[in-house]
């Protein structure tokens, strides 16, 4: 491989890796933006999303690679079902664990979130057992350059890479539209800015919070499904790791800022892929967190953040 081929390939790797981080990071940042809670259970909702999507595939009788029309019928259906399930789960978590603590100190829901995270992990452990779960090859993997274009290149781009990008971009664009253009999105932004005033203006704050958890959970479910189809493996403890990376992405972009979270996720994806290539895989985590520390020291509001000064 030539040097530029390596760079292009690693950038593609970083893009697919970062896209999943970005989807999870959005859920973190939305919840933080609205109730100032770092929802540590979010990564585990993502993990359960992977397992839940597996069950939906099983319920629909899908065990082999989807072909032709199935890709445009069954796949969107599983996306919708998985996202609805995890959205409902996330709302249930808020209702049961966080809502009773809405008026208590900030530390109480934070610790509760850690507790919920442990609970979800153990649910997955009981449900699926400790061994890694093989996720069936439901999405076809085609080597695009060779098989579609007949180009013999050292660079590999598969249909799975397209799936990740092709599924995350519409989700992010849709989310952006929802938040900036719809009435509900406006209510969310207003609540995030000033909860009391929003309430005084007639916004149903509790319903807005519920909506935020709903959307965040749906995104985590989509990320779980995408990750399952892309990497074909699931572990009960993977939510913690993914959550940590996504949380870092959210902080890096400026917690509470949605485009920031998406960019932060992509940034960490690129950075870790390049670090694996040009430094060493064992230093990648150290590098990612070193950059996080530098950003927090010199730009505490994050790369894109503006509002966090009065939030912390």
């Amino acid at each position, binding site marked *: 491989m030539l040097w530029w081929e390596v760079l292009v390939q690693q950038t593609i*790797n970083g893009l697919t890796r970062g896209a999943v981080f970005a989807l999870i990071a959005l859920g973190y940042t939305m919840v933080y933006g609205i109730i100032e809670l770092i929802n540590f259970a979010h990564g585990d909702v993502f993990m359960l999303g992977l397992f839940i999507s597996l069950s939906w595939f099983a319920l629909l009788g899908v065990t082999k690679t989807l072909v032709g029309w199935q890709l445009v019928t069954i796949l969107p259906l599983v996306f919708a079902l998985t996202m609805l399930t995890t959205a409902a789960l996330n709302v249930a978590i808020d209702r049961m664990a966080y809502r009773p603590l809405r008026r208590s100190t900030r530390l109480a829901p934070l610790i509760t979130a850690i507790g919920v995270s442990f609970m979800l992990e153990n649910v997955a452990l009981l449900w699926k057992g400790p061994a890694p779960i093989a996720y069936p090859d439901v999405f076809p993997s085609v080597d695009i350059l060779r098989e579609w274009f007949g180009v013999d290149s*050292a660079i590999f781009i598969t249909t799975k890479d397209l799936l990740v990008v092709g599924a995350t971009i519409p989700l992010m664009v849709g989310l952006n539209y929802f938040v900036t253009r719809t009435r509900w999105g406006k209510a969310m932004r207003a609540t995030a800015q000033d909860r009391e005033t929003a309430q005084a203006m007639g916004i149903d704050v509790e319903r807005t919070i519920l909506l935020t958890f709903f959307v965040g959970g749906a995104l985590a479910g989509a990320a779980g499904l995408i990750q399952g189809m892309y990497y074909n493996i699931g572990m009960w403890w993977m939510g913690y790791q993914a959550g940590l990376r996504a949380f870092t992405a959210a902080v890096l972009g400026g917690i509470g800022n949605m485009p920031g979270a998406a960019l932060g996720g992509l940034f960490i994806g690129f950075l870790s892929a390049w670090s694996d*290539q040009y430094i060493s895989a064992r230093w990648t985590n150290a590098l990612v967190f070193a950059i996080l520390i530098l950003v927090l020291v010199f730009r505490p509001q994050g790369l894109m953040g503006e509002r966090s000064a009065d939030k912390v």
Partner: protein
Amino acid sequence: MRPSRIAAVTVALLSFVIGFSSADAQQCPKGKLRVYTSWPMQGAMIPEGTGMKNGVDLAVSEVGGVVAGYCLEVVNLDDASPQTGKWDGAVEAENANKAVGDPLAIVYIGTYNSGAAKVSIPINNRAHMAQITPANTYPGLTKKRGAAPGEPEIYRPGGFVNYFRPVPADDIQGAVGAKWAKRLGAKKVYILNDQELYGKGIADVFEVMAKKLGLPVVANEGIDWKQPDQKPVLTKIRASGADMVYMGGVIETGAQVVIRQMKEVGLVAPRVRFVGPDGLLEEELLKGATCDAALATEMRVTFAGLPFEKMRGVGAKTYETYKSKFGKEPTAYALYAVEAGRVAIDGIRRAASAIEKAKDVTEKREAVRKAIASTKNFDGINGKWNFDENGDVDYDTMSGFKVVKADGPIGCKFQFETILE
């Protein structure tokens, strides 16, 4: 001590008395000696535990239960906790103390779990009692290579070696793997490890041996196995031009992901092949869709020792004897238990005159410990071997397995390919 355990020991002792009454009928002019064994005998471990018990019984029956005028008694102890059914450090300590406290106890055979051995080795060491394992493979029990800081000295409070292992330790796999890679015609190897004790230890040994053989090693890279995406590292391997990937790890630490994604980034045979240690020799690894990738990368793994049906000489004979005596195939470590029993008997035989002269039980045990430590040219099931200064065997006979297509739901399996020495 709980009553259930007293009952278990009593039953074990009774079964011994019944089983070896023929030995009692013979003359024991010099009296009795006891060999203690300790490993789990509950739950899922019942088949393996029974297999190892059979192994030791086989070794004792070969000499008619008498060594140099001493009648041998085998006392089988269980080191599993009745609550969990798994090995338990407290129970293992109790077993070792029981053996040490018995003036007739001369050798301790066990354990099955390396973690349990960490508990009993020092107890036996203080009593100068030789301990022989039929199954522990964790390197740190005997040597620095692949060990945690302070090992193995922490297991030797007396400053001498009392723990012997007629089984090749895990790190040998790395050395044999490197030789195999060379034999397979690899030109340039890329080593990955999971940064854990087992995987990193093996990968480091592989690296040293490969360099000694003149096989270029691009890197020995620790991966973050909790990350389900190893594509960047694998892309780097592709860019490096390596034609073989060796991974020190077990199936839980990312090997599955590495093999699957090797195929996705184009690291496939004949350009690149995959070799790993026996931590990957698990049917579980091939489940899911890993089969395609394992076939595409011509996945191969090393395995300590030989499969029973490939054994030669003493090994082949032992295998046949075991099958005819017990009417079934030996379990994974049953024949190693035979070997452990034979090593103990051989040591007692060579120490016989010293035992007679010994003033107390500690001196008797010390005589046997010394005799076992000096075991040389022993005709074992995998060939002739010696104990080295750490109490490890010095043979490195292993076997190589390759993933091949197979019928059945998984679609492939590990098949014996070659003997590696």
